[in-house]
């Protein structure tokens, strides 16, 4: 298990060092700095470095290096998950997790480290529970709790729902569900789809009192096919509170979200609050949510991906001094919707000197020499539209011609109320002892994951 945790700044200075086991010395922190952080090869060749019998696992965030040290054959996935979680803890406690935050809160970080790992075994890394008893003046959790009895804390920290306190109360009970999809695409230069999939994330913000029991339904093909009739009826009745209060009625505004069609989910993963046994037997998603924001589930679909944009690039290298570009982009979703913050990055050869760019359609394009790319920004791009760009790039002659690796065109965008997978929230039901009414909101967004078009 984990023998020590170090946090370094960019230069490799140790900000935090906590040893859990006697098999490592504080000086191993220097070993990692010498071998990895200040190693002459700029690119890190592996996230795990083993020197002798000591292994260093690291992740980077902002200007920090988080590093865990082990001396045994520990589960690498566990260690990385721990580091990710530690990062999340930091972000949640301090808002930003950077060198300054670490320096300002080191006592708190030590306390946290003492609590989350016991002898190198991760124990409880739930922000909500930890905030109950690991607090300082400098950071107070949002909901100030009047010192609860220690017994209730310990029950909380070891109980079956470590992620939720049982004494939460809200005047207005609300739950927000965000369906955020990232479309990943690799399109070959000839226009064939090499890989297209959707990684979805359902993020929930729950502001519900007591210990609410939630049930959540999607237009999952497996469920729908099983008992289509009953499920549909239940779905409709349950949707009524969701839809009208949500962002526009579904029938009108949700042009991009599949209507009544089911979606084949290739695989999904849940937050630990979801009862996996139930899901396995009848695919019901039931859970007691943590308070506040959390990622309820992640899913992946590979079939029937609605690609929001089609890109048709033509890039011609005219001899050694000129490259011609013609890039046509078509939007492929309902005209009632529109994409925002769209950025198309069109790579240019490193020896480009001058670009003559012409956009016919929407957006503005500019050559950014430092990125070796033409950056084309489109603040708003409506559905079923098209726009194109032509450019001529002059190249400086080079003494030793190096062929250009032609990196792919990359797209970045957001489309609200559109899901590339066609996924749809059918219902969210909340049951609580006190039987209060709750209000639920659903929002959909599709954004670019790695949307690459090779040229």
């Amino acid at each position, binding site marked *: 298990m984990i023998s020590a945790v170090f946090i370094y700044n960019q230069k490799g200075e140790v900000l935090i060092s906590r040893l859990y086991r006697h098999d490592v010395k504080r000086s191993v922190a220097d070993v990692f700095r010498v071998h990895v952080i200040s190693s002459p090869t700029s690119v890190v060749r592996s996230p*795990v470095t083993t020197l002798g019998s000591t292994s260093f696992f690291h992740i980077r965030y902002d200007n920090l290096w988080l590093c865990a040290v082990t001396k045994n*054959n520990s*589960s690498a996935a566990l260690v990385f998950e721990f580091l990710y979680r530690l990062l999340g803890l930091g972000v949640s406690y301090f808002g930003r997790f950077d060198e300054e935050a670490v320096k300002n809160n080191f006592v708190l970080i030590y306390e946290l480290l003492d609590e989350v790992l016991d002898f190198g075994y991760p124990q409880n890394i739930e922000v909500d529970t930890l905030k109950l008893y690991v607090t300082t003046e400098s950071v107070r959790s949002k909901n100030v709790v009047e010192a609860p009895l220690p017994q209730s804390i310990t029950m909380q920290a070891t109980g079956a729902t470590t992620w939720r306190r049982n004494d939460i109360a809200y005047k207005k009970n609300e739950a927000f569900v965000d369906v955020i999809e990232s479309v990943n695409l690799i399109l070959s230069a000839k226009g064939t789809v090499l890989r297209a999939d959707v990684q979805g994330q359902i993020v929930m913000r729950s502001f519900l009192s007591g210990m609410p029991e939630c049930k959540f339904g999607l237009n999952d093909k497996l469920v729908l096919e099983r008992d289509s009739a009953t499920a549909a009826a239940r779905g409709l009745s349950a949707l009524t509170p969701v839809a009208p209060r949500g962002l526009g009625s579904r029938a009108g505004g949700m042009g991009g979200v599949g209507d009544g069609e089911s979606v084949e989910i*290739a695989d999904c993963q*849940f937050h630990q609050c979801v009862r996996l046994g139930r899901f396995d037997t009848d695919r019901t998603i039931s859970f007691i949510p943590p308070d506040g924001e959390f990622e309820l589930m992640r899913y992946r679909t590979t079939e029937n991906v609605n690609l929001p944009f089609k890109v048709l690039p033509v890039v011609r290298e005219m001899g050694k001094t000129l490259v011609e570009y013609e890039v046509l982009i078509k939007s492929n979703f309902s005209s009632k919707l529109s994409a925002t913050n769209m950025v198309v990055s069109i790579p240019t050869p490193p020896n480009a000197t001058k670009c003559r760019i012409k956009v016919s359609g929407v957006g503005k394009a500019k050559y950014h020499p430092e990125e070796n790319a033409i950056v084309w920004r489109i603040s708003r791009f409506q559905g079923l539209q098209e726009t194109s760009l032509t450019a001529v790039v002059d190249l400086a002659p080079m003494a030793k011609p190096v062929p250009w690796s032609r990196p792919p065109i990359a797209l970045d965008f957001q489309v609200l109320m559109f899901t590339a997978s066609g996924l749809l929230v059918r219902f969210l039901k909340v049951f609580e002892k006190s039987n209060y009414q709750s209000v639920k909101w659903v929002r959909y967004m599709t954004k670019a994951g790695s949307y690459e078009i090779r040229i």
Partner: protein
Amino acid sequence: MKKVVANMTMGNDMSPLFQEVIACMSIPDLEVKKMVYLFLINYARARAEIANLAVNGFEDDVNDPNPLIRAMAIRTMGYIYVDRVIESLIDPLRHCLRDRDPYVRKTAAMAVLKLSMFDRSLVEEEKFLDMLKDLLADGNPSVVANAVAALTEISERSPHIKLKLNMKISNKLITALNECNEWGQIYILESLMYVVPQESGDAETIIERIMPRLQHGNSGVVLVSIKVISYMMNYVAQTETLEPILRKLSPPLVTLLTSGPEVQYITLRNIQLLLQRWPTILQNQLRAFFCKYDDPIYVKLAKLEVILSLTTEDNARVVLTELSEYATEIDVDFVRKAVRSIGRIAIKIELAADRCVRALLDLIQTKVNYVVQEAIVVIRDIFRKYPNRYETIIGTLCENLDTLDEPEARAAMIWIIGQYADRIDNSDVVLGTFLESFLDDPAEVQLAMLTAVVKLFIMRPTAGQDLVPKVLKWATEQVDSPDIRDRGFIYWRLLSTDPEMARAVVLSDKPEISAEGEKIDMPLLEELLLQVGTLSSIYRKLPCTFIPFAKKRVLGPSPALTRLTIAAPPVSRLPRTGSSAMGQSKATAKQPAAEAASLAASRNSSSGFLNSSTLDVSGPGAGLSNPYINDIIPGPMHGNDTMLIDLMSMDDDEYAGDGSAAINSGGMVGFNANFGMSAMNMAGLGQTASGNGGSAQAANVAPDSQVLNSAFDAAGLDALASMSSSALPLARMNGGSSSPMPDLMRQFTSSFDLTSFGNASPVGSASANSGSLFTANGNPQMDAFQQQQQLQIQQQQSDASNSTNSAALKKEVDDLAAQMYNTGLLNNFNTTPAGASASGSAAAPYVPTQRILLDAQQTQGLEILGTFARRNGQIQMEMSFVNKSGIPIGEFAIQFNKNSYGLMPGSSLNAGTVGPMSSVEVTLPLVTGGPAMPMQPLNNLQIAIKCTAGVFYFQTQFSLHILLEESGQSDQGLFLRMWKAMPENMQTSHTAHNLRFMSMEDMRNKLNMNNVFTVAQRAVGNATHFYTSSKMIDGSVFYSEIKVANNFQAAIIVTKSANAQIIPLYQKAIEDICTAF
């Protein structure tokens, strides 16, 4: 206090403040306490004397009413490894383990682990382990999880505590899983690796119950679940159960690729391992592994490996386009690996080779230096693999000569030029330019140069005559490397004495190369799979290689251990028969098995080797269910286009003749089908073996009366008579020892008729019959034989129970009868006392039963049985050729493919002609020193037999004892020294059951006869310990301790050898020697 902690972090020594800090302990503020504790953890070790002062404070805190403080005190004390503190920890710890509050209990569980790291014996003395075990039944899941984690690590680190969980506990633990937090789930799942399921059902239950964990959001949970599942799958009895499980494994693996890059990397490295063991997972998921432009380099490299292993003929085209794309990227390592992968695909998939070569040529045109160099290296391999196919591209290659500056690329290019010196017009000029820097080149290039120039000279003497003397002179006079000098001299001598000989040597055919090289050895793979998700799975190294205390993990022995596997999806079109053959093999399994057993037995005894009639078709492993063998099953089919291709070209003319021969003899199989069928045979053998293993395998085999008889349909009942009559001369031919044979044979046929044919329930009576024999027969030798009979009969019974077609059954029995035309067998069935035929003495060398190498069904009637023996220091292959067709078969020739120990025939095969319905016995002396290449398993042999009926390929495994030398005796002193000197990781233990000895004397003699020499022997209680040594022809020495129970029920063989990987084979050989006659 804060300032103190701040300074501490910066590395300033704050220990002088110890006194003051300890005074703060009494401040009843949680936050201050925490900082004091932090301080103590940091400095107490260095200042042990002051740490003692803190003990009082701790003692107050562990009795604090606040559970948080109690827990914190226990936790902190555990971190301070100072005698006094630890002493005062023991009592409170005992209380805390029973504390009301679960938080305290779970912290206390961890404290036990801390304590055990400080002083292992203390934990045992104070009975903390038992208390931990009690906590496993705790009502609170976090407590259970921590207790499990503590127990797991204690057992991992302790030399004598071994964690074993039974199904009852594991069921409880799995129930607790649902309520644990994610980390607790990991600890509990990890502990399931210590469950050894005793029945297939247990393993299936566990798999089913942890399957939902694959949906967990924490990649640690997912990977550890996969580890447990892949471990448990080794205990599942039926492949049908495995398939749905494997299907469910794929999606979570792909999903893990959406996590952070670090987790992606871990996943990819593990996918590689899983893929090799379970080739069917992730089918059609290829595209998920295509690299994104901004993936970190380590993820890209790992993805490339997975892509390569997922490449099949069907998707080769997509993969190639993708790889060509990668080859234009920036990162040099990645580009090189992409280029190399293209070459690998060319070698792996023949039909894709053209496209690969084109892709490589395109890459060469880019003129990017390292791409060109890498491409040339792989093109050399392609030339090796497919000679005389792509010579047209040499011209293009030659354009890039001047850019080659890396030794490997230069050597590759020089090799190509040398190899095709006669087709490159200006090869002398080109070599000449390379020659300019000869003396500065590294040895690798010099060697290539030397050979290339000699090749040039031989092919085009006029062109080479200027270069050769120059190079030879340099090589022999000016180069320091002894290798180059030696090779120079050899060439010189060759060229000057016998140019024809030189030609034969230098231009000889090159052995094949294959793409299988980078696969991980099966035993290593099996161990690595027990480490899924851990560091060792990433490095592909066993934990003991980088962690000093790591314990070796093995698949726990259990009657349910099956090691089932699923056939790999066919890589290319030709061997596709493989999968269908596998399917059929299930149905036909019993048939060849029964034949194998009876025929092998009968053949052996008729030739006077009665002492070797155990059912040893199993070989070293366990057949279809065994990854070792299954790994090989596609072998003979690959043979079609890869491994054995040089054998196949033995004679092309004969090839056509075979086809007609096949038709003439009424055989239903064409030439191509042969390969599939012989594979089927192998599979069949395997299947029997797993039945032999004592599990209920035999019953699982689906009976199919249609297939049962395919070979003997022609012969059928009518043939029974002719068989026995044709066997008559045969028996005579086999030697004088079996003179009473004809009589007995008649007797046998009739008696068999009586016992089984005439009976209403033939099989039942047969088994009853042999059952009684079994008990009545006092000769242990015969026991072995009987068992084998019983096995067959059991198999038949299982058929009978499943099949209502009694006619087919009868026929099968007929077939059996048809083959049992032999004295030994006959005696048994007639219930005559078997003692008369007993001839085996313990002092004869061990010869395994002949097993069917080639089945008559697949070879137009030629059946070959064989075994390996070592007699008087001579390794022999003893074969029987049985001609079951209607035409004579002759002109036998045999050839061995390269194998691990360089075994090859010592003389030509002298089998003469085998007439129709007759057989001949051949003993082929074997010699070592032939071309060697590691096989998998190491004792595997691939053999080709050519005869008038065609060319047949098969493979078999020999028992390792034939490689043991007569000079293996070591003295006691040496034994003791070596035994002590060798570390534990070179040691393997193995248990053999049911030894066939009457006395220790017998056993020692038998072992000595087989070159397992006893160094010492002593009696200990109810057992006798032998200490033995053996030496193998390659110089490996084995030292063993064999503990034999005095009733010969079981023996434990513990072997140490520097060559640890072959110990299992060695032990298997000993087991066979001890259990067989």
